[in-house]
């Protein structure tokens, strides 16, 4: 049985659910088609899944700066995404399907952040400076710990015990933890000689 969000409100009426799902599929197809047909000039408006940036610069320093800027931007995206998600989840109409979609998006963005950070980390390790190595180890450990919030939400959802308030609280924890992580990234970046 598919887990549902625990809510005081009655679940969506079963008769209209398939129709809604069909509408959503049609909408999704339309969005995909419109994205394929979009002009290059308008692409900057699209805030969908991030693309791996071109990290390579003329020097190691330039590559590091590019990678750090991309990681910082991605971290901001995860933080903002958590804020938006929390606001959506506070609505009484927020349902299990919406949660799954938001969860998948947030987890994807978070994985992208981790990948981007791994790229930055491997560049920073090339500096062969202990302070850079320490910074990388600390930031990497931080991301792993923040990732525990996703495991928690997933477990709660699978157990059928997830409710709106838990999602809202966890989103707030994710947002604030990301803010701290970004601060550490900035601090460590300036310590290893990168400037934003």
């Amino acid at each position, binding site marked *: 049985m598919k887990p549902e969000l625990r809510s005081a409100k009655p679940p969506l009426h079963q008769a209209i659910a398939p129709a809604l799902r069909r509408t959503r599929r049609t909408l999704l197809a339309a969005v995909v088609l419109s994205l394929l047909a979009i002009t290059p000039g308008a692409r900057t408006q699209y805030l969908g899944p991030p693309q791996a940036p071109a990290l390579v610069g003329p020097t190691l320093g330039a590559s590091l700066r590019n990678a750090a800027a991309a990681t910082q931007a991605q971290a901001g995206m995860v933080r903002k995404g958590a804020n938006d998600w929390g606001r959506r989840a506070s609505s009484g109409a927020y349902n299990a399907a919406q949660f799954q979609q938001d969860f998948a998006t947030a987890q994807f963005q978070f994985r992208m952040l981790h990948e981007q950070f791994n790229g930055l980390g491997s560049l920073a390790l090339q500096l062969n400076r202990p302070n850079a190595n320490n910074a990388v180890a600390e930031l990497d450990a931080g991301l792993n710990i923040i990732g525990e919030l996703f495991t928690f939400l997933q477990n709660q959802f699978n157990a059928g015990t997830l409710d709106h308030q838990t999602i809202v609280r966890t989103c707030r924890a994710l947002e604030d933890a990301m803010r701290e992580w970004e601060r*550490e990234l900035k601090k460590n970046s300036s310590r290893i000689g990168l400037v934003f």
Partner: protein
Amino acid sequence: MKTLLSLKAVVSLLVLSLAFVWLAGGCAAPSGSSANPKPGSGIAEYRQVVREAHRSVAATVKSLEALAQPWTQTSTPHPALAGFDQALHQLELTSVRTRARAEAIIARGQSYFDEWKENLSANTNQANARAETERYTRLFEHYGRVRERSGKVREEFRPFMATLREFRARFGHPPKPAEGESSGKEIDGLITSGRRVLQSLESVSTALDEAEAELRATLAAKGSKEGLR
């Protein structure tokens, strides 16, 4: 000859102080290529991490104790719930910061001691080599103790945090008959678990104090010997 001796003394002191940089959280180079760390500064920094974690866990335990007080009005939330939520949120943030820092520091420690060990074999003077090996062994034992106790904190903390999150997700829903009693037992279990985390953190502090005392004694003995030369 005198210059060579004093150079040896400086290198030796530097290696000794680097052995404690595993606690410094990332601001010194094992090869001495960047600014030299102040011996023991790493211990102070690690102690700060431990203190911060202790404060946050203690606040959570205190809020749990308040939540354990009986509350019969089911129509309104427990008056201690807001305080518990605040403490739990703070603990989430503190845990990210302190656990990440502690993990990174401990991970670096071994490589500093490895480097020191490599330097030991390069010492050709037998008497010096023996004395240096003894110092290495003593300080490495302290490092090992701090690492082991930090591992214990990690073992205690992870299930504590996970249970706290799960408990909060359940708490505050309209209780079914007999749920109040089980929630009371759960809070008691959490308080016990939180106190165990606090004890583990205190044992890390004790290990840090011992390491610091050993380092001070070693540096003082070494300093007085260098002064005699």
